[in-house]
């Protein structure tokens, strides 16, 4: 039997406003429990919400970035349920009239194929607090610092067909929100959270299978693992003649499995109705246009420009624009050294490996774009060879001196004095009479060996092109 997987993602993005969605309380992460909750956040009687305009603008920015319809009139609703970390007993969200309507984004797979993924909608809502079940001797603690933090819930169409596509979609969303500067997208801290709706069906079946919803998966890697586990679980059930139960499941990364949380069939009736404490948000074309004009260059546009302007292949361009910081770093390097291809190789190669190895972000890099640009410039102007450049690069991690100072101090400057190179080559010819003879007898392959000997003798500092030229002249 051939199965097709159908995945839709609901992604909650914490908007990086300074204050909460409906109160003036700070949203800063990591404060002492319950120090960032004011009388509205605590749902004291008589308190009322006031919409945070910055959150609205961020939501509209996102909508425009995915070419979505923007809700000219969007309405907040109350979603009713009881839980101790939900102080009002209802969450203010948007049901029928979300701020962002249908839109789409394009994902690129590793093999270079592209796919357009539909976004059904995105709406604003307030976050709940946190319930802490450990450390309270059989009781639960409530931390309301997060209660009321603005979220943008982004709902995809069920257009994703495997875990890799789901991860690519999630990474693309991550990249877009970071470019737009509307969220830090930090999955570990919960500022980007993902629920996956997963079902499988027989290939060609027009009907969707019964889905399960996997909650709160907190890394890209876990998204892939959780979906793969769930697809396997559903296959086994269906192939054994069983039936999928529509339910919410939790991914346990320690055991690498999903398990049932609660059955949707007995789930809450949320009794949505329009929030009477807030008027509908009405925005006009002028407001939308002002935001559209202020949008930064987005990953897709930047990637196209990199390809056109710098002659990069689509894959390199795609890697470089995946993070705004990397793209900006790269552009600065090119500006300094003037060689896009070399810059791309160094940024996506040596530098990215260094950052990944140490878990550093671009702003943490010990090698600034200016220094890396200078290093590449020294390869270009033949001050050092590419190979020596790697040694210099290693030194630059620890040593904050200027690139030229490091090259000077370490005596790594390339030997370009033809007299000096002639001496080296004379020595090589004298020491390798057999190979010299073989070459003269027409064995071209030996030439490389002799160049290598000359380079070795110069401790890699001799200019390889000059070595080539002079050696060939001398062997004539």
């Amino acid at each position, binding site marked *: 039997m051939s199965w097709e997987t159908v995945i839709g993602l609901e992604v909650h993005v914490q908007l990086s406003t300074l204050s909460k969605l409906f109160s003036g309380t700070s949203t800063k992460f990591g404060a002492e429990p319950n120090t960032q909750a004011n009388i509205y956040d605590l749902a004291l009687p008589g308190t009322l919400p006031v919409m945070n305009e910055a959150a609205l603008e961020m939501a509209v920015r996102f909508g425009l970035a995915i070419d979505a319809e923007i809700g000219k009139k969007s309405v907040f609703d109350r979603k009713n349920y009881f839980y101790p970390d939900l102080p009002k007993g209802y969450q203010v969200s948007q049901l029928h009239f979300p701020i962002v309507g249908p839109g789409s984004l394009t994902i690129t797979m590793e093999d270079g194929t592209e796919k357009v993924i539909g976004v059904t909608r995105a709406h604003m809502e307030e976050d709940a607090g946190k319930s802490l079940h450990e450390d309270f001797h059989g009781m639960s603690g409530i931390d309301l610092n997060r209660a009321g933090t603005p979220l943008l819930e982004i709902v995809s169409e069920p257009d994703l067909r495997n875990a890799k596509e789901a991860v690519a979609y999630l990474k693309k969303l991550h990249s877009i929100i970071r470019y737009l500067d509307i969220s830090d997208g930090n999955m570990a801290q919960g500022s980007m959270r993902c629920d996956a709706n997963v079902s499988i069906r027989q290939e060609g079946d027009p009907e969707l299978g019964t889905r399960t919803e996997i909650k709160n998966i907190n890394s890209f890697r876990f998204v892939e693992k959780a979906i793969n586990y769930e697809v396997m679980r559903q296959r086994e059930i269906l192939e054994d003649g069983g039936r999928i139960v529509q339910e919410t499941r939790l991914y346990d990364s320690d055991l690498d499995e999903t398990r049932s949380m609660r059955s949707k069939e007995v789930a809450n009736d949320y009794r949505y109705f329009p929030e009477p*404490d807030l008027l509908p948000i009405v925005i006009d074309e002028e407001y939308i246009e002002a935001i559209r004009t202020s949008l930064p260059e987005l990953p897709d546009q930047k990637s196209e420009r990199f390809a056109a302007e710098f002659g990069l292949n689509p894959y390199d361009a795609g890697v470089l624009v995946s993070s705004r910081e990397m793209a900006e770093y790269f552009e600065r390097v090119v500006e300094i050294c003037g060689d896009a291809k070399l810059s791309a190789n160094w940024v996506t190669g040596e530098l990215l490996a260094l950052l990944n190895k140490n878990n550093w972000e671009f702003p943490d890099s010990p090698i600034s774009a200016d220094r890396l640009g200078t290093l590449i410039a020294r390869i270009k102007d033949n001050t050092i060879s590419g190979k020596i450049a790697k040694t210099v690069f290693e030194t630059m991690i620890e040593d904050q001196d200027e690139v030229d100072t490091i090259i000077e101090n370490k005596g790594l400057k390339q030997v370009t004095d033809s007299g000096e190179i002639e001496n080296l080559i004379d020595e090589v010819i004298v020491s390798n009479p057999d190979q010299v003879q073989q070459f003269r007898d027409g064995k071209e392959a030996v030439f490389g060996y002799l160049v290598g000997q000359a380079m070795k003798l110069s401790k890699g500092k001799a200019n390889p092109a000059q070595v080539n030229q002079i050696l060939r002249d001398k062997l004539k």
Partner: protein
Amino acid sequence: MMAAKTIAELARALRDGETSSVELTRHYLDRINQVNSKLNAYITVCEEQALAQAAAADLRLADGETNPVCGIPLAHKDIFCTQGITTSCGSRMLANFVAPYNATVVDKFNAAGAVMLGKTNMDEFAMGSSNETSYFGPVRNPWDTNRVAGGSSGGSAAAVAADLCVMATGTDTGGSIRQPAAFCGITGFKPSYGRISRWGMIAFASSLDQAGPICKSAEDAAIMMNVMAGLDPKDSTSVDLAVPDYTADLEQALNGLRIGLPRQHFAEGLNPEVEQAVRDGLKEFEKLGATLVDIDLPNNHLSVSAYYVVAPAEASANLSRYDGVRYGYRCDNPIDLEDMYKRTRSEGFGDEVKRRILVGTYALSAGFYDAYYRKAQQIRRLIKQDFLDAFQQVDVIIGPTSPHTAFELGAKSDPVAMYLEDIYTIAVNLAGLPGISIPAGFINGMPVGMHMVAGDFEEARLLNVAHQFQRATDWHLQQPELKTTESAA
């Protein structure tokens, strides 16, 4: 005993040096001490704070303060949060709740120099029309202590009528200012929705709740409106409209005023003596140059039904926060979370509140939403349209506030009969319009209220019409003797 005086009169007396705010405040505190036990109008009296405020007001008056409410003793309905002083909302649930903030209305009276004597009794969470649902016991009517004061702002109305304060605040979701004002023979004014901030006013039904003045005359209502009205950045539903001086147009003559009499308000169910009193009042308006026009409010009969879907629906969510987790009542020794929720809410809320939470929860449930909530909202638009059509023909609409005078305590045990108490007032809340009840006569010693409605934000016009009536009549000057009649039953 000093004769009951209005804000306007006392503001003059304070400036003429006839009395001081401290003297006035002592006088009212004494009266409360003597009389409140008969009426149960106050839940909390704050003597010390009141005297301190009065002393501060006297300094301001000596400094030439011009705001007429400066130094005037005031009572707040116990639905307005007052920093450091219990705000119970008439409920066991909040009997121990002390807010760390003031309602905007409270802040505004404080800023103007008014003196808060205390917090008045009310139906629990403002749900009731007789003040019998209060956790603190019913308020009694100063005209006959065997009868109800009306509700839900019964404590404020009784306190003003019995001269236990000069002025009081109230809130009106379906008639909760106007009906008790009618029953107690005083003036109660509900402004347009959005005119006064709801910040710090404990929510019953957010799209209907509106604060307003309860006082002795339309002129006093205008003076209080000058303090209370205005945009509040903390209440997104408050309106950004210039606030006029509500006292400026009070003396305007009523020549040419067109008064609409809704046929539906002079129909079956109306006590004939109440009808007669209102019709006598209308004759006064004719003498003042007004003309009377019969009008229709064709969807009026749907207003109570629509209201009892919308208001409980909103209330069911508004009251979810009372869960025993963060403040207010919590049951003893809960076994687990569910037990805490169940017992806290079962023990903390009274029957009427529970009834409305159940009705509202049901109306919003999946499968019933369209039939109830959505339908009720559609009816609400029809009702508003009825008024808009009527105001094409007339300037104000006048009728009775209530079908009868105040009834005896315990007389209405059927909830639906109680809901029908607000049959003339409820549509005004659904439409968001301003309405006022003023005294228009007596039947067997019990006051009759006349109800007047104007178009959106035409508060000044309404106060002008009411004031002109009060210049021509003296019903509003009558004072109760706090007598107790034998029960008729």
